[in-house]
């Protein structure tokens, strides 16, 4: 079956809040250092971006697709280190709405 899209109206867009100062405007945004797919895309083993293919933050401030990082950390070769700085990987507590307080 062949479908031709004649027109479309975007009604919303979303972006992971990576905490990075703003995305450089090269139109692509930031990519996961492991698979090189934008954060807003999904890792190579997923089909749908979004909550099913979330990001993971390290205390070292590096961000990856969760599935990409877990695949790496699961190997003996990783020595459980962050692929960027080789420091021991510690998953950061997500600062969801730092302003909400108790």
């Amino acid at each position, binding site marked *: 079956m062949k479908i031709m899209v004649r027109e479309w109206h975007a009604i919303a867009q979303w972006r992971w809040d990576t905490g990075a100062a703003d995305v450089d405007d090269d139109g692509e945004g930031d990519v996961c250092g*492991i698979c090189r*797919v934008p954060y807003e895309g999904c890792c190579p083993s997923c089909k749908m971006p979004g909550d099913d293919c979330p990001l993971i933050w390290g205390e070292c401030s590096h961000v990856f697709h969760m599935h990409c990082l877990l695949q790496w950390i699961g190997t003996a070769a990783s020595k459980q280190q962050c692929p*960027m700085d080789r420091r021991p990987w510690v998953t950061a507590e997500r600062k969801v709405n730092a302003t909400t307080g108790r």
Partner: protein
Amino acid sequence: MTSTRRLQKELMDIQTNGTPVGIKLLSADDFQTWYFSIEVLGETVFAGEQFALKFRFDQQYPISSPAVQFVVDDKYKAPEHPHVYSNGHICASILGSEWSPVLTVIAVCVTLQSMLASCKKKERPVGNDRYVLHAPDNPKKTRFEYHDDTV
């Protein structure tokens, strides 16, 4: 296949942005084996020489490191370097225990280029002949010791 998608991106980047000086893509006919030529610029012991690097990728790339070696055939020789065996195998931690999935093919080329550039004296690794005699086809199967004192 995760390796293909990642390699497609790397290839596209090479085709749009080019390669660093002294490094050229010779062939990337599929997503299993790529070849690059590598030259060391400036005044080094390898001035005027050209080498070729062969990359082999498995399906887990970049989680698993590529198998990288210098090409040894009628046209190319392995550089005479204390970390490069005469069969082209390379003893470099970045290809083994220090591999990281955020590295790329080009990053590996650049690292090896600077490894050659810093070489002061042309010589083979200690035990070259013994190693070459029994070396596996794939250098990833070798457990290199990264310059340890023990024999």
